[in-house]
């Protein structure tokens, strides 16, 4: 039974439950304070009789029309299974009121699945109009994946209601009268669930740290269990983080007496630049350029440790303040990535110490800091920085979801990733994987009316052993202020090789960025080594990126996709300030829904969890996962590494300023 409740803004909830023949897993995301969306993946055993069970994917949305007040209940409206094949399709309007903080009453009306019993006529039904009947949607046929607006709020209404009582802070007792009669489950295949009563009873126990265990007695006959976990992305377990902190700021007069600042320094003693290089290295930063111009020092730093670039700037400024003589009063820190200057952060030396313990220090220090484009910043190059080699050898896990025979498939193995930056901007990179255990190669090859640009993925898994995931030469540079450019050639991704070129306009303080990309690619051989297949295609996109400033990022990519189809991809991400990101996307192209196949068009949800969010220690690594309802050939885009917007955004002024709270950390 739905309630009118919502989660606190931004919270993520995960639930797995089992009762009768049904197993459900659900992910809920509170997108706005009043709106949440959920994705449900269900399995109903034996629902299709001799064929077996039914796997069902469904999206719900729930909007709280008004918050609870002293006299009025909270009121919400919801749409269930808005894109699926209709097994759980239904709409509701529900009200919930709390009494004495512990007792809650809920009542509402539902349509579709929620109007299978306790029904009354639809108040919008008169003169036998369209609201009097609800068209029947089959739960097992059709491509699904499209909005079924024509069904919403049609047909008779079911009335439901219930109550819950918090016995204490951990234990809650619940009872409800349900208008969901589990009709499909009881009718099909002789009934996979017994239904004796509309009454459901439940008890839930909060285990702590957002975990809750619940037990249910459903419809007078079935017992169910549910485990749920709720997490707030704004509140990682380690809060503001642990680990080593910035160096203490040494008084300027003491710094002046340091050996490297004395005029009679012996020639074989390290100079200030050497000391800065060593001290930055201790902070996980690489000094790539250094120059003193009058009262200003300009340093180029490559930050490979801090996911918050503001923290890298802060650490650099601490090192500069503890090393340079008093005559140097202005700091310019140019954030560099792969040798490409991105943003120049200018600050006054005196502010660093003066504001460190100020009650409003971060804000005041930010207000005195200037951000400029890093393009054109010329400094003396530090010898020995290039060529730069980095590697990473470790385990990996790869997942595939929603295969009809096995909902979750995974491979685990060893992965070697290397980067060899020959000179600033020019990088040779490669990644090899060797799967050790897993079952991704058991995925089923589905039919497709389009060129098989993605649906052959199980064949790649089956026919490969050692995988060359990518092997590329890449050059990134700054053609002029506010512009970035990239050219990448080689084996670009698991299934394609070729050449990719991109240009991005992205002023450092701008919320808007515009880009264009052109790719010529050819399909790789299934063994994922060095040969190619016959299929080749030219693709490209014009892209617009916008940071709405309230944690939401929008992106539109318009152009040609791998199957030669033309269209656009629309993406919205909610990005928390600490870097955790939850997003959704869909792609509409000129491929008709029928030709596309199951799902009708490409869509999915994405999640990015910074490693620092999990560990509390600074790290630039992220754990990314994209979940598509199904991977088909329409609306498929080439996967090129280091697309420029994401490559540069973390170091652009808006993002650096957003995380300025970490400047003194």
């Amino acid at each position, binding site marked *: 039974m739905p309630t009118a409740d919502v989660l606190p803004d931004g919270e993520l909830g995960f639930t797995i439950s089992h009762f009768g023949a049904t197993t459900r897993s659900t992910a809920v995301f509170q997108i706005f304070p009043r709106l949440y969306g959920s994705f449900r993946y269900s399995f109903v055993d034996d629902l299709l009789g001799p064929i077996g069970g039914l796997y069902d994917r469904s999206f719900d949305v729930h909007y709280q029309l008004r918050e609870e007040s002293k006299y009025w209940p909270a009121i919400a409206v919801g749409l269930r299974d808005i894109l699926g094949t209709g097994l759980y399709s239904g709409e509701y309007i529900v009200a919930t009121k709390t009494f004495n903080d512990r007792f809650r009453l809920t009542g509402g009306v539902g349509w579709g699945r929620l109007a299978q019993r306790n029904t009354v006529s639809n108040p919008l039904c008169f003169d036998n109009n369209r609201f009097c009947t609800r068209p029947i949607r089959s739960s097992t046929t059709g491509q699904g994946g499209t909005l079924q607006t024509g069904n919403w709020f049609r047909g008779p209404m079911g009335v439901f209601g219930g109550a819950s009582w918090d016995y204490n802070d951990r234990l809650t007792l619940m009872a409800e009268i349900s208008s969901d009669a589990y009709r499909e489950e009881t009718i099909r295949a002789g009934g996979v669930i017994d239904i004796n009563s509309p009454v459901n009873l439940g008890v839930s126990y909060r285990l702590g740290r957002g975990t809750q265990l619940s037990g249910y007695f459903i419809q007078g006959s079935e017992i169910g269990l549910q485990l749920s976990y709720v997490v707030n*992305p*704004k*509140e*990682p377990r*380690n*809060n*503001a*983080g*642990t*680990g*080593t*902190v*910035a*160096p*203490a*700021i*040494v*008084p300027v007069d003491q710094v002046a007496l340091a050996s490297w600042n004395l005029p009679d320094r012996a020639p074989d003693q390290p100079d200030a630049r050497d000391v800065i290089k060593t001290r930055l290295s201790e902070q*996980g930063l690489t000094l790539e350029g250094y120059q003193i111009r009058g009262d200003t020092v300009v340093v180029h730093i490559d930050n*490979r*440790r801090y996911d*918050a670039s503001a923290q890298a700037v802060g650490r650099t400024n601490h090192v500069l303040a503890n090393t340079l003589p008093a005559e140097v009063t202005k700091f310019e820190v140019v954030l560099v990535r792969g040798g490409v200057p991105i943003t120049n952060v200018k600050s006054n030396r005196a502010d660093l*110490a003066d504001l*460190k*313990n*100020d*009650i*409003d*220090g*971060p*804000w005041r220090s930010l207000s005195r800091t200037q951000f400029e484009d890093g393009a054109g910043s010329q400094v003396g190059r530090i010898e020995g920085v290039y060529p730069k*080699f*980095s*590697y*990473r*050898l*470790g*385990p990996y896990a790869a997942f595939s979801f929603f295969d009809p025979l096995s909902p979750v498939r995974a491979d685990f193995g*060893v992965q070697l990733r290397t980067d060899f930056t020959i000179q600033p901007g020019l990088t040779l990179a490669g990644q090899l994987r060797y799967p050790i255990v897993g079952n991704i190669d058991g995925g089923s090859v589905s039919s497709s009316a389009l060129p098989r640009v993605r649906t052959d993925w199980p064949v790649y898994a089956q026919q490969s052993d050692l995988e060359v995931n990518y092997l590329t030469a890449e050059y990134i540079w700054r053609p002029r202020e506010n512009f970035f450019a990239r050219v990448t050639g080689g084996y670009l991704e698991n299934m394609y090789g070729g050449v990719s070129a991109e240009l991005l306009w992205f002023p450092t303080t701008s919320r808007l960025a515009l880009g264009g990309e052109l790719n010529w690619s050819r399909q790789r051989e299934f063994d994922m080594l060095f040969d190619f297949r016959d299929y080749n295609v030219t693709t490209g996109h014009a892209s617009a990126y916008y940071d709405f400033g309230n944690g939401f990022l929008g992106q539109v990519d318009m152009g040609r996709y791998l199957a030669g189809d033309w269209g656009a991809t629309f993406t919205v991400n909610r990005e*928390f*300030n*600490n870097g955790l990101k939850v997003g959704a996307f869909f792609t509409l192209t000129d491929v008709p829904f029928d030709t596309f196949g199951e799902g009708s068009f490409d869509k999915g949800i994405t999640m990015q969890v910074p*490693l620092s969010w*999990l*560990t*509390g*220690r600074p*790290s*630039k*690594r992220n754990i990314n996962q994209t979940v598509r309802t199904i991977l088909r050939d329409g609306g498929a885009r080439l996967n090129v590494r280091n697309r420029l917007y994401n490559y540069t955004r973390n170091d652009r002024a808006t993002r650096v300023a*957003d*995380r300025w*709270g*970490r400047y*003194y*950390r």
Partner: protein
Amino acid sequence: MGQVLPMIRAGLCTLLTLALGACSNTGDTVFDIRKTLFPGDQEFVQRYQTAAQAQAPQLKLLLVEFDEASLISQDSVRDGIVTWITPDGGTLGTKDGFLVTTNGFGIGLLSSDVEEPRAMIASGVEGPSTRFHTYLNGNDRTTTRTYKCVIKNQGFQDIVLGNDPTQGQTVRTFIWSEDCQSLDQKFQNLYWVVPGSNRIVQTVQWTGEFVGEVATQVVP
């Protein structure tokens, strides 16, 4: 030779990978996750070791809610604020014994303004006071909170300084309490003050919601 050493290191990493999980020359590995899973596995940072070897002044520190105790060493002094460093690299900043900042404890007490209670206790004045805390939260946002407090002298207490209660140094102190509250937070700080010198030798102070109270005692 310069080319060979990285290759040898990479080879060793292959073996280590099988045993431990991952290795890299970028200093960013799944060892970070191991540190999170096994937080008791402390690494003593160089800065702490340097301070300890220099026999810098020390404080006994107890994270009350976590029941974790450690000896922390004086790292630096600037503008009257003493920075103390913990074995795993976190820092506390105190001004005349009053906690003003913490860093690296998970909580981010970025800074605080405790001038009013500091002046009142130093001059032996009871009554209402105000203090301000600026916190850094897990979403990298800062918030400043105002607390209304009441300061009281709770009388004498003899306390023993030192690790061994039988051989420690007994000191007569006044206990001062500072009861504070904001709209949704409430805490009590306690200060053990030596009469005459006004030196604070022991405290229990609230750092914020995440870590809660910390207790400190000077090491004689």
